[in-house]
């Protein structure tokens, strides 16, 4: 799975790098160490939802996102909240700017799609999840298909709705039992659904299902286990 951590490190973690666990500033207050991430933390990842390879570039480096399953999505990398992160998303020779400032504890997925003319388009999907649970699986649906106005994730025979009401450019998430079940993304009552397979979900893990239509045609869905890069101050 592609990692963006070193790229982000150059542009977003600079403030953290100068602060150790037992910094002298804290010691002056009579404390041995801070509790929690010293400057707060937020998480950022990139996803390629186009038909072609995507390159994300910042002043600190570059990240290539392919078109095969897990190659499409990077890790959630810890970044400093309140710091503007900038870069570009490129498909072929065409680029679109990336500019995002995260709030503390926010998780942002920078989704790169391609318009009908093939030019990259950037959508920020923001969430502040609270559903962390080591005995359940956290399952999310990300809707990056503009034609899918009311996305829902169904399980089994398609009649069991797991997540519903997800608008384009948004996400929905819920805790489920860790099971192995067939999933599909449907966009209205007449939609038989686009199938996807996560395999056996594990307790404590987090999963994302993306629905998208490269170039506005040919709806696709795929899912993967979320990865979080280690936080190292």
């Amino acid at each position, binding site marked *: 799975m592609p990692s963006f951590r070193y790229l982000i490190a150059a542009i977003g973690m600079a403030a953290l790098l100068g602060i150790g666990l037992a910094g002298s500033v804290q010691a002056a207050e009579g404390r041995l160490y801070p509790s929690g991430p010293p400057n707060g933390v937020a998480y950022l990842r990139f996803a390629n939802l186009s038909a072609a390879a995507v390159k994300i570039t910042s002043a600190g480096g570059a990240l290539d996102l392919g078109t095969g399953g897990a190659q499409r999505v990077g890790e959630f990398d810890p970044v400093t909240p309140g710091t503007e992160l900038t870069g570009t998303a490129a498909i072929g020779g065409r680029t679109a700017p990336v500019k995002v400032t995260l709030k*503390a504890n926010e998780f942002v997925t920078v989704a790169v799609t391609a318009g009908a003319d093939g030019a990259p388009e950037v959508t920020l999907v923001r969430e502040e999840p609270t559903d*962390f649970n080591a005995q359940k699986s956290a399952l999310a649906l990300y809707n990056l298909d503009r034609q899918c106005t009311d996305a829902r994730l169904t399980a089994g025979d398609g009649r069991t709705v797991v997540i519903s009401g997800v608008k384009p450019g948004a996400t929905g998430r819920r805790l489920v039992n860790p099971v192995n079940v067939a999933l599909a993304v449907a966009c209205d009552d007449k939609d038989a659904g686009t199938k996807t397979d996560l395999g056996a979900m594990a307790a404590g893990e987090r999963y994302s299902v993306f629905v998208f239509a490269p170039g506005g045609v040919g709806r696709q869905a795929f899912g993967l286990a979320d990865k979080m890069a280690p936080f190292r101050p």
Partner: protein
Amino acid sequence: MNGLLAGLAILVIGDSHMVTNDYLITTLHNDLVEQGATVSSYGMCGTNAGDWVYKTDVSCGEAERHGTKPAVINRQARAPGWTIDQLITQNHPNLVVVEMGDTMAGYGQQDFPRGWIYEQVRTLTQRIAGHNLPCVWVGPPWGNEGSSYHKTFARVKEMSDFLAQSVAPCRYIDSTQFSKPGEWPTIDGQHLTASGYRAWGKGIGDALDRMVSAGEIKK
């Protein structure tokens, strides 16, 4: 010695509550030894759970203790630290006890850093699980409000409840059940007095007894 824990080789790791004589490295360690367990304890001050997986220097003290020997405490400014893999290989435990919570709860921060805490906790619990070892996670005690640590009873409760749902497959010991908020006096809002550490150590030991008696921990 009551022998309730005989047959257990327990590796105890923790934060600053384990790095000073008369803290848990004395009281909990003694309690477990007196119950027949073989015990090795390690503390790294100021560390988060992930620091026990990705080796880190420790800047405010570390300590280790084995069996009935006295604790060896290192107050070097940059002590070398240990990893859980290293300690499991060295000590061959059949039970790991993790005492950690105060360093990760975000005291003084407006927002509770759920995602970050979860990542820290999972990093350690999954590494322990990778060794096919059972583990028990001990959450933070109440402490006192109004100190430079900015510890509040509400945040301690939030942290303890969050750990309870985050530490599986480890079992959880809720230290807030051992006393009322503020009942155990502290020296700085966070670290207890000797009587508090005696009570906390006994509470943890008794909880482990109950888990063993209930068959939740196999010898």
